[in-house]
Structures are given as structure tokens and as C-alpha cells.
């Protein structure tokens, strides 16, 4: 069974629900109220450990709760550089970025946050990124002259905040939440300004530092911390555009297969929790579209240039091919799209959905979800 067919089988969707050029559905909500939450996995998961028969036990929430409510794209191709920061930046700009994956530099093209804020005259608080590691601290805005940081998103680095808070007390209870940068664990860019950010963020989220620390203690992974922060953000600020990048899966770079599987299972659960948060928050319920997609895949077992699941260095088809799930009002439920789409298509889709013009983005809007 080829990849497309087993993904179709995995999601259990009847052929009649396949989409091939149907009339677009429009959301009933007015554009101004519409909200979007994007969840990406930094550290893609392969089909074998997810949608293939032997992997389905790892993603019960995706299969049983989320996919039946949404439209599922079985072939999303990433033709860019397969590093997490540069790939996530490409997802956010809709153009293949070529920046140094490990440098603290902004994307070269305007981000979705800049298009959104500039075109729709939205305040800074209306676009947020919750990023997995300190290396993502510049992802909120490009350095394009007509766009740039003044139209960028607020970037929340939960680990940086935690590290800042920890500097005032004991480290022991929180170290497990500070796993960082699995792709090159030997390098962590300095971001600076932690103390200022900590108190400002705490103020915005109406969360005292001690509350933050108390909650953090109950969490078991950095991604759980990110989702905790996302919930707090949705409750207190309710941004219209929220981008969450999960990263636990990328522990695969350490070569421990069991930890990689743990990461997949946790991400699966957290995606369901994010959707639950959307559905139970009056600011979001009924007007929010959620997109879930890995930034790219991981190497196949059989490519001699790689070492299987551990990395994403070969650039083979498996490491470039992944999937996307969209769910929310106006998005057809229990539907599968088999045509190949591009990772860059996300930003034009968001543009069409929210009403801004991503002028420098290269992809094409996914008409099936508009």
C-alpha cells in the first residue's frame, strides 16, 4: 500500500469524502472575528510511527478525535532546507528561507504575522508565537523595510522565561522543562533580556511568577509548558493569530527511539488539548480554525546516507513529505485531500482566510479549506 493509500486507510475516510475541486465553503463568521491557531511540530514524525498501521497506537487523539472533525492533506511537501528554525520560518513566511538555521537572525521574507498586522491594522497583542527553543526568538518578524519587527508578533519563549524565573530560586524542580535544541544540543543562542520579558509576560498573562513556577512544576515536558502558556494566553489575551511550535519529538536526535515515541504520543495528546482549549473558550469557540502540521519529516530507515528516525539530513522523500490537518468552522469534516501541496501554501491560505495579502509568499492557497 503506498503512502497516500495507507494514510487514507488510517484516517478511515470513505472515498466519497475525498475532495477534488469541490465548491469552496465559506466560514459563516465575519472575517474580523475569525481566529487561527497554527500548531507545528519542530521535529517531524514519520508515517511509520504515526499513520502507518504499526504507528497508529501512538496518535489516538489525532485519529479518533481530530481528523474526523477536519480536512486532512496526505501529501505536504517541504522543498526547503530541513532545519527546524529555517523550516518553521519558511512556514511562517510562505517562502523558502535560506537563513543560517543556528543563527539568531530574522526571516528574510515578511512573516504571516507582519502581513496580518500590517494589512488588518491589528495591535501587537493580536499575533503571538510560542516557540520551543531560544533559537526561535527572532521568528516573530522579518527585517523587510516595509514590514519588519514593528508589525511582528509577540514571541513567547517559555523556556527562557522559566530559566529567568529559576535564576531567582531552585533549579531542581524545573530542569526537565529546559531541554533545548535537540538538533544541535551543544549550541543555544543567547537571547538576553530574560528578566524584563519575564515580568512583562507575567503581567500580560496576568500570571504571577510564583503561579507560573507552581504550574510549571506539575508539567512533564517543554511542550507541556508551551501549551500551558498557550492556554493562559488564549484566556487572558485571546490573540487572533496564535502560532505554537511543539518540539519534544525532536529528542529523536539523541538516537533514543523510545523517547521519540514518547514525544509523538505527547504531541498527539497536546494537539487534542489545544483543540479542547479552543472549543471551551468563548473567545475561540466557533470562530477558530486550527492547522496542525509537522515542519517536515525524518529520514527513512533504508536511506544509507541517514540513520533512520534519528535525523533529517538526507533530504529523501520521506524527510520532505508530511501532512496537514485543518479543522474548524467552514472546514469540511472527515475529508481527505490527496493532491500534493507545498509547505508554503499555509501562509496564502491564512491570507485568504483572514483577509490579508501575503505579497512575498510563494505558495498557493489551499482552496479545499476556504
Amino acid at each position: 500500500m503506498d503512502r497516500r493509500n495507507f494514510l487514507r486507510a488510517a484516517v478511515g475516510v470513505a472515498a466519497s469524502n475525498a475532495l477534488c475541486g469541490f465548491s469552496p465553503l465559506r466560514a459563516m463568521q465575519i472575517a474580523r472575528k475569525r481566529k487561527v491557531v497554527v500548531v507545528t511540530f519542530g521535529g517531524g514524525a514519520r508515517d511509520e510511527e504515526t499513520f502507518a498501521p504499526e504507528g497508529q497506537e501512538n496518535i489516538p487523539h489525532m485519529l479518533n478525535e481530530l481528523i474526523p472533525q477536519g480536512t486532512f492533506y496526505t501529501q505536504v511537501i517541504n522543498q526547503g532546507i530541513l532545519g527546524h528554525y529555517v523550516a518553521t520560518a519558511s512556514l511562517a513566511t510562505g517562502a523558502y528561507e535560506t537563513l543560517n538555521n543556528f543563527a539568531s537572525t530574522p526571516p528574510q521574507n515578511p512573516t504571516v504575522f507582519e502581513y496580518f498586522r500590517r494589512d488588518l491594522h491589528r495591535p501587537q497583542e493580536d499575533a503571538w508565537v510560542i516557540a520551543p527553543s531560544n533559537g526561535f526568538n527572532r521568528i516573530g518578524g522579518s527585517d523587510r523595510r516595509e514590514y519588519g519587527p514593528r508589525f511582528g508578533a509577540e514571541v513567547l519563549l517559555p523556556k527562557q522565561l522559566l530559566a529567568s524565573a529559576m535564576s531567582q530560586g531552585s533549579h531542581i524542580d524545573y530542569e526537565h522543562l529546559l531541554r533545548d535544541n535537540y538538533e544541535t544540543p551543544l549550541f543555544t543562542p543567547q537571547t538576553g533580556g530574560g528578566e524584563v520579558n519575564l515580568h512583562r509576560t507575567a503581567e500580560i498573562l496576568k500570571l504571577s511568577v510564583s503561579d507560573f513556577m507552581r504550574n510549571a512544576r506539575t508539567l512533564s515536558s517543554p511542550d507541556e509548558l508551551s501549551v500551558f502558556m498557550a492556554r493562559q494566553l488564549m484566556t487572558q489575551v485571546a490573540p487572533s493569530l496564535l502560532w505554537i511550535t511543539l518540539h519534544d519529538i525532536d529528542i529523536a536526535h539523541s538516537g533514543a527511539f523510545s523517547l521519540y515515541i514518547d514525544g509523538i504520543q505527547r504531541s498527539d495528546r497536546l494537539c487534542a488539548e489545544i483543540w479542547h482549549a479552543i472549543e471551551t473558550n468563548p473567545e475561540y469557540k466557533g470562530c477558530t480554525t486550527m492547522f496542525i502540521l509537522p515542519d517536515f519529516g525524518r529520514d527513512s530507515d533504508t536511506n544509507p546516507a541517514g540513520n533512520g528516525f534519528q535525523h533529517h539530513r538526507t533530504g529523501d522523500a520521506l524527510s520532505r513529505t508530511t501532512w496537514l490537518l485543518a479543522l474548524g468552522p467552514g472546514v469540511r469534516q472527515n475529508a481527505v485531500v490527496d493532491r500534493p501541496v507545498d509547505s508554503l501554501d499555509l501562509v496564502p491560505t491564512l491570507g485568504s482566510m483572514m483577509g490579508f495579502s501575503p505579497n512575498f509568499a510563494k505558495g498557493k492557497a489551499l482552496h479545499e479549506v476556504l
Partner: protein
Amino acid sequence: MQPSDLKDASFSRYPPQARVLATKEMLLLRELPLALAPILLRELIFYDWKMPAERAELNKQFLYLTALTPGERTNVLKPFRTLSLSNELTTMDWVNDPAGFMERLTAWLWSTHQMERFRSIADAYSSAVSAKSPEDLPSSPRLGVVIVGAGTRQSKHPLFQKLRPLGVHLTAVHPAEGVAILLERASKRAALAPTSDSSFRHWYIDGGIPEAIPHLTQISYAQLQQSRALLLNRIQGAISSGGMGPEQLRTLLARMKPDEVGLNSAGSNEILNHFQLTLLTEGAGTQIFSTTFAQWAARECLRRAHPETLVVRYAPRQQAQTMNMMLSGASPAGLDPEGSLIDADMGAYYTWINMRRLSGADGLRFLVWFEGQREALAIGPGLAHGTSSDSPLNMHQVLALLDV
């Protein structure tokens, strides 16, 4: 600098044997395109510490290219010349830093969307080399043994799922003396091998404390404890000194010598010690997880040494902590035997895949055994695929089943 500018003095910083070979092949090296020459030099610069099988591969590549007529050689090399390279690549010292060149070349090819083309050019080239000079068959059928699960008595998930379709699932193995029997058989194969062919042909890799066994090339996670600590200490020092990004750190690691991590850089173990050093400096996670070390060591052993016998024994790895803590050499929070069994199960599958890439794959004998337990899986000529057997077998009988 272009390859056509190469001269003997260009290789003055190369180790002795590499320098001799470079000088001998100077005319050929000068003919190579810039996109290919540093790739060959990346292998050549470490010639003195290469495994015999690696040296043979490199020599065959030179032989292949020199045996071509000038017209044929032009045609074979032409596709590499069609790649557009940056000025930075042309001007850097790619003779003495071919690995650095490769890193920059990779980034350049990605950023200019030439990677796919480079890949297909490189694949075609390497297929042509392999077709003209195939690897010799092993003197006896290769044997791979992977021992998994030390420290745990049962698995929460079914074992050997990926390998079961390929062999016989044994469910009533008598485990007594299993490790000793398997190692003795491996040792015996090494002892019986022709002397001229025995160098680095028979290996025993242990993810924990190794058993004492003669005739096998041995490496283990436990024996490299001091080296791992010294390496992590060096890394921490480099990071805390500031201003060191991943590329610079990789360069630093690539330039390390075995004696910097407590291993002799010269002497009878010179080649093995360089091999062990690269396991720690090039393998992600090998410094902190014993299961990753065992899997990566097996992969590199197979890729570089082409062994006829390989025994890999996994041991429990430490529980996951933060990367910062593990990389700083902090004491383990405890062991994770259940997780390690899952790691090792996947590692066994990867070892089988990597063994299949070597010559004589049709005659490969492969066994994976849950240490101390009754469950194993045997793959070999004549053994039915996707079958199961509950016949009681001791480890000698399991090996007989494999005709070893």
C-alpha cells in the same frame, strides 16, 4: 584555489600515508572538479586511520578513475562541473579542511536549490564506481548477533515486529549461558579466519561493561567512560568560552586527536582509537545514551569495517534528563531499562538493514535475542519467513539453526 592548482606541497600537513597517496594520485586529483575533489580528500586526509575496508574502497575509486580513458573521465566528471559554487567555496582552504568544505557545500546546495541535482549526480557517480569494482564477498557468510533487553524481564510491546516477517520467531529459547555461547562462537569464527583477512573483521560492541573474550575487536560504552567525560568537559569549556556556534564546535571536534580523550593516538590501537573517537565526536547522542552508542557503533562498524562477524549487546541507558545536564556529565537520575529495550529493538532492525548493505547479503545469518529470556528471532538462508517456533532450543541449537 582550483584542483588544477594542486601540488605536492599542498598536502604537507597530511599524515604520512595520506600524503604519499595524494602525491601518487596528483595528476588525477588535478583533473577533478571542485565539487568532487574535497569529497575525495575528506576520505584521503584520514587514510592513515582508515579501516582496511575503507582503504580498499578509496583505492578502488582511484583505480576506477585512472583506468578510464581521458574522454571517459571527462564524461564521468562533467556533471559535477555543472554545479554552480560560491566564491567562498573556491577560496577556502578545502585541501586542509575538506570536512568544512563539505559543510559549506551542503548549505550552499540547499540554499541554491541544487541539492537534488547534486544528489543524483553523486548517486550516478558512486553507482558507476561500484559497478566497476564491486566489493569482495566475505570469506565466510556474515553473522550478525544483537542482544537486547539486559536489565528488564519483559517487554510491554511485542518485540522484533519489523524483523518478524523476515525470519523465524523463536519463543522457547533456553537462555542459560546465552551470552557466553554467542560470544564464544563469534570468537571462534575470528580465530579460524585466515590471518591476512582477520583485521577488523570480527567485532564485539557492548553498550555496557563488556565480557572478556579473545580474538574480537572490542569496544564498549563502559570502557569509554573516561573518554566521554573528557569530551563533554571539552565541549562545555568551548561553549562557556563564548562565541562558538555549531559549525565551529563541529570543526573543533573533528580536529581532536584520540589522546585528547585519553586514547592513544599512535601504536597498535591507533586505528581503533581513532574509530572510537569519531563515534563520540560524530555520533549524536553517543556521548550520553548507551543505547545510541551501541546502535551508532554498529552502524559505523558495518559501514567502515565491513565485518564478517558482529555481536552487539545493549545495556540499559540512563533516564532522560535535560540535554544541558546530560551533556555536562551530570550523574544519571537512574536507568530506563524498558525504554532501552525499545531503543535496542529498533537498533537491531537498523543493524540488520546495515548488514544487508554489505556484500554476500543473501548468505547473511542474523540473530536477535532478548537477553536472559526465551524470545529470539533468527534470519538466514533456508529459514522460513514470517514463521514462529515454540520448540525448545538452547543457544547452541539456535546457532545450528542458522548454520553457524
